[in-house]
């Protein structure tokens, strides 16, 4: 699965393995050999069912979870796990927006003070932050400037997520990693916040790794999409191409399961079975037990992600 690393990539993840250890059980490979790149100004959508390792990958990219094998580099600097020491200032240009805006903001500090932390981080890296104020950032994410004097719990979920985004942006990130940033929000707020994240990231020339299980939102904001199943990327490509012509049977199943609001009363196609236990993944292709198109050998041969971005034996590597 090792491919030539892209020189222009801002974030480059190469054959990454992340394991969780539990007492009295074999380690669980939550991420089992993933290669992924994010370029500056690019939005990459990472999709997959819950439990497929998306969040673990995001945490590893930010150094929140140590990796077992493989490498993660950000702008040429290896990303090392966070420790007790102060983080390498170069790495503070990776910022993360978490899923739960109820847990990610400090309830006892004013919103403005939390955003000011981000501005200080950018200044500590030697960025010119002249004139940057929490009020400006709040305005950019569509909140009133006086929100800076209030506390997180005075806001709704959607507003809190905007605050979390403002705080991440305050640190002038060059890579923004967003782990399910919209799933805790109401439907009406989801699309707004997703679009806001895209426009703010693209405007500032930063890369955005946007993780979500909501395919319809990813479709609207991502330039490239990567589909993850049980710790591995099974398909990747330009969003519109993957959407119009999904090749991997898993991608096909995911897209077919989205109910359409056409009023026709059609039940979406069901993908039978549950995602298997990542501690004991199926042999061969990890998707074969649920795959409607599995054929002889899928339970033995491990398909690799091809250069044109699909890991499935239905598509033999083009000569």
């Amino acid at each position, binding site marked *: 699965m090792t491919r030539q690393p892209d020189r222009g990539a801002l974030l480059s993840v190469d054959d990454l393995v992340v394991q969780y250890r539990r007492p009295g059980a074999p380690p669980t490979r939550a991420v089992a050999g993933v290669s992924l790149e994010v370029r500056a100004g690019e939005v990459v959508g990472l999709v997959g*069912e819950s439990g497929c390792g998306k969040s673990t990958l995001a945490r590893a990219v930010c150094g929140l979870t140590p990796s077992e094998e493989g490498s993660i580099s950000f702008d040429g600097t290896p990303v090392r796990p966070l420790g007790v020491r102060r983080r390498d200032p170069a790495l503070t240009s990776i910022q993360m927006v978490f899923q739960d805006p109820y847990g990610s903001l400090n309830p006892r500090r004013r919103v403005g003070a939390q955003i000011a932390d981000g501005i200080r981080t950018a200044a500590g890296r030697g960025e010119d932050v002249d004139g940057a104020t929490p009020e400006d950032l709040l305005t950019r994410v569509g909140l009133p400037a006086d929100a800076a004097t209030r506390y997180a719990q005075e806001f709704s979920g959607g507003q809190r997520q905007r605050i979390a985004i403002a705080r991440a942006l305050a640190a002038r990130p060059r890579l923004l990693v967003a782990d399910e940033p919209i799933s805790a929000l*109401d439907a009406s707020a989801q699309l707004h916040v997703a679009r806001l994240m895209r426009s703010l990231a693209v405007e500032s020339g930063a890369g955005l790794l946007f993780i979500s299980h909501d395919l319809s939102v990813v479709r609207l904001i991502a330039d490239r999409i990567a589909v993850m199943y049980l710790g591995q990327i099974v398909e990747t490509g330009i969003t519109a191409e993957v959407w119009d012509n999904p090749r991997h049977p898993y991608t096909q199943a*995911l897209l077919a399961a989205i109910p359409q609001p056409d*009023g026709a009363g059609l039940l979406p196609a069901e993908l039978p079975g549950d995602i298997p236990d990542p501690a004991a993944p199926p042999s061969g292709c990890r998707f074969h037990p649920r795959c409607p198109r599995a054929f002889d050998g899928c339970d033995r041969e491990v398909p690799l992600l091809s250069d044109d971005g699909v890991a499935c034996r239905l598509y033999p590597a083009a000569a």
Partner: protein
Amino acid sequence: MTTTETPEEAGGGTAAADSGIAAADSGTAANEGGIAATGGGTAEKGAAVLEISGLTLDLPAEDGTKRILHGVDLTLRPGRIHGLAGESGSGKTMTGFAVLGLLPPGARTTGRIAFEGTDLLTLPPRQLGALRGRAVSMMFQDPSTSLHPMLTIGRQLTDHLRHHLKLDRKAARARAAELLGQVRIPNPLEALGRYPHQFSGGMRQRIAIAIALACEPKVLIADEPTTALDVTVQAGVLRLLRGLCDDLGLAVLLVTHDLGVMSAIADEVSVMRHGRVVETGPRGRVLTEPHHEYTRTLLDALPGRSTV
């Protein structure tokens, strides 16, 4: 679990409620036959099992009270799924809670929620409690918080059955296993001894459905039942809900913001905005030729609007 403070005085309310119980009891008996009878006849509109008319709701606010619902009308019929759509804060969840009397303290309601002729809004707490979970039941968005993490699935299913239906331990267990089979949990007997964390999200939501259906309710309020699930798992749960509704003649109020979900399984759709129902009609008509401007806006705002 708080109950609604109704404007009626206690004295007058009791008399009305007494007659209400009688009505509810005879209703239950009549409907036992009704469930079997409605099995096939889902196509035609049956008589209303739950009728909400002119429902208003005021909640206490900093400056006096705030009106949350401004006269909501909704009708649920056996074997039919009625979808309730709308943005957050439109009052769709509160409408569902009002049916069960699960409103916040200090809530004041007017109007009528008639369940088989009994007005649930004026029913005293005890009698409402007897109906809740038995005749009218509810399932929530997040199965990981609506199930008790430290009790086995079997315990959570049988408590309910023993309390409401006064089944003995053995009968309750048999019924619980049957219910788990009905929602297609593999190995129901073995599953009874397991805890919620030992199941996946989709399986937990199936278990929540089994609990909601345990006492053969006539009405199920499903509040965003698939919002927390992956699309692949959602498909299975939607199929299950539709099937149960058809087979058991259940009347379902499906509260969801997802018009795709609505389109897949609802028969009728109502759209709420600012505490009012702005449009009601058959699913196909509302989603393809909306009459109200707001419904059109909602449809246009959809991420998955354009066809795949």
